[in-house]
């Protein structure tokens, strides 16, 4: 199993990570950060494979990947 952690203070809700993920793991959540952006989160029950495609694309270096 793998997982990602989103550093929510940095996320700008651009969705490039969602576009990059081959497993449809990520979605815009309901949590809003201090800058006013709706932060991305892992979907309930989604299966992350730890490929780091999301993290590689993220312009804010907001994604950390665990495997």
């Amino acid at each position, binding site marked *: *199993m*793998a*997982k990602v952690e989103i*550093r929510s*203070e*940095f996320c*700008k*809700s*651009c*969705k*490039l990570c969602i*576009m*990059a993920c081959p497993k449809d793991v990520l979605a815009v959540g309901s949590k809003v950060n201090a*800058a006013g*952006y709706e932060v991305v989160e892992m979907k309930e029950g989604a299966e992350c494979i*730890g*490929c*780091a*495609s999301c*993290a*590689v*694309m*993220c*312009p*804010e*270096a*907001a*994604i*950390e*990947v*665990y*495997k």
Partner: protein
Amino acid sequence: MEKIYSRPKALQNRATGYCPGCLHGTTVKIIAELIDEFGIQDSTVAVLPIGCSALDCWSFETDMIISLHGRAPATATGIKRNAPEKTVIVIQGDGDLASIGLAEIMHAANRGENLTVIFMNNGIFGMTGGQMAPTTLIGQKATTAQGGRTEAHGYPMHMCEILNELKAPYYIQRCAMDSPAHVREAKKAIRKGLENQMNGKGFSFIELMSNCPTNWSMSAEKSIEYMREYTLKEFQIGVYRDGGEK
């Protein structure tokens, strides 16, 4: 579980100065990763331009300087010649490098300066509000070409191909930032550019095809689709020169 991807140390602990989905952010991140991997944070000097790439000043946790418009290669020449032990990374946008700074980049390349130049090409003047750049596509809209660029404005300038006419450059590559695979390839190219400098090989030029969701007036996702459909057809990615050979 082991952490296999983390935020680089050579980045400041803050959000970038960039708009949501701007690939400038992805670029500064992969450069910071390389600075970490080479362990050169204390000896790196980022030479920044005028334009959106100057917003890297909110990201790099290294020494840096912002040059006069277009003059980053000249500033970097002075730094590198006087402090050859430093790793000097020049970052310029297309408005800065291919327009006002055209003479500077041509002559730095022609002298074979031992520098690594990262050229962010998003086909527009971003910071000043979306004016047409030398790299804007025919038909692409800009605030100064509201019906789209026409032939009367000139044609998109291909800097890799132009620099490849010179004798002195050591390494010239164009990459794209539109997908994880392409970003990984771009990181490899920048790694090579930095290694060339550390080994005293001379001038390395890496062009990164990028986006500007704000001034292209589209979402970040749409801007990626636009790049794939239009930009990357005009600007072919690939290695133009490696090892001083054309």
